[in-house]
């Protein structure tokens, strides 16, 4: 059993590394866009730091989203929960709300086509 738990832990570790690698790659791409846009250079270390912070921030988002959904007696996380993540900043809330409305209307169109 201990061996199984250890193997499980190892697999977990591998998945974490895989996920971190994907986040790191994507952060690198986004930073490259900013580099071109602002004509600056990011050091590899700064990209690594942003990646790690992004990865950990996902843990915080995930926990908050789960709690917000549960607070509304749901088990499914919805866009309303995502909006709550952005409640502290007017600018961010407006941006997220707009995106959410755009998504909702394009989903509607897709359904109508079918």
């Amino acid at each position, binding site marked *: 059993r201990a061996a199984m738990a250890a193997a499980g832990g190892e697999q977990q570790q591998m998945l974490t590394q895989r996920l971190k*690698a*994907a986040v790191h790659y994507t952060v690198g791409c986004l930073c490259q866009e900013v580099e071109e846009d602002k004509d600056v250079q990011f050091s*590899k*270390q700064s990209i*690594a*730091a942003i990646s790690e912070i992004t990865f950990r921030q996902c843990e915080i988002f995930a926990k908050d989203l789960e709690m917000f959904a549960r607070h509304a007696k749901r088990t499914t996380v919805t866009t309303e929960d995502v909006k709550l993540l952005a409640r502290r900043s*007017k*600018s961010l809330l407006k941006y997220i709300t707009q995106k959410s409305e755009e998504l909702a209307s394009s989903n509607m169109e897709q359904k109508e086509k079918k």
Partner: protein
Amino acid sequence: ERRCSSLQHKSALSACVTGQKQTNCHESWSLSPEEFEIWDRLYRIKESDGIKEPVLPRVQFETLENLEETPKEGAARELSLTEWSVWQNQPLPTSLVDHSDRCHLFIRAMEMMELMRHQQGDCSYEQELQPHLRMEDVNIPGNKRRGRCSR
């Protein structure tokens, strides 16, 4: 003479809580004349103090339209969340409230940055993760960035 002691403050407050004044000073949300006098004398920042009013920095998003009000500059002292960054790679003492998860995240990130501070060129974080990258995790269909990204 001002801000001379929290003792004085405590006795003033407890005078307010004990005795007859109790009902009076809890009736309204604002300060009673006695409380106002204490606040004015001990805590209120006045021009003669030669210190600037402390204000918290405002949220500003570089990549979004800004909706928050912009602060008046000059007269106030903006409290800095970054000037003591070299202190922040370890948990600082707590009193009644423990450090939260997001606080620990922050501490770990500061620690990581401290460790990488003197790295030149190649990055240990990148080297550690590179073998774990699977392109199917990042290949979003229709992603214009694909191929252009060298990292």
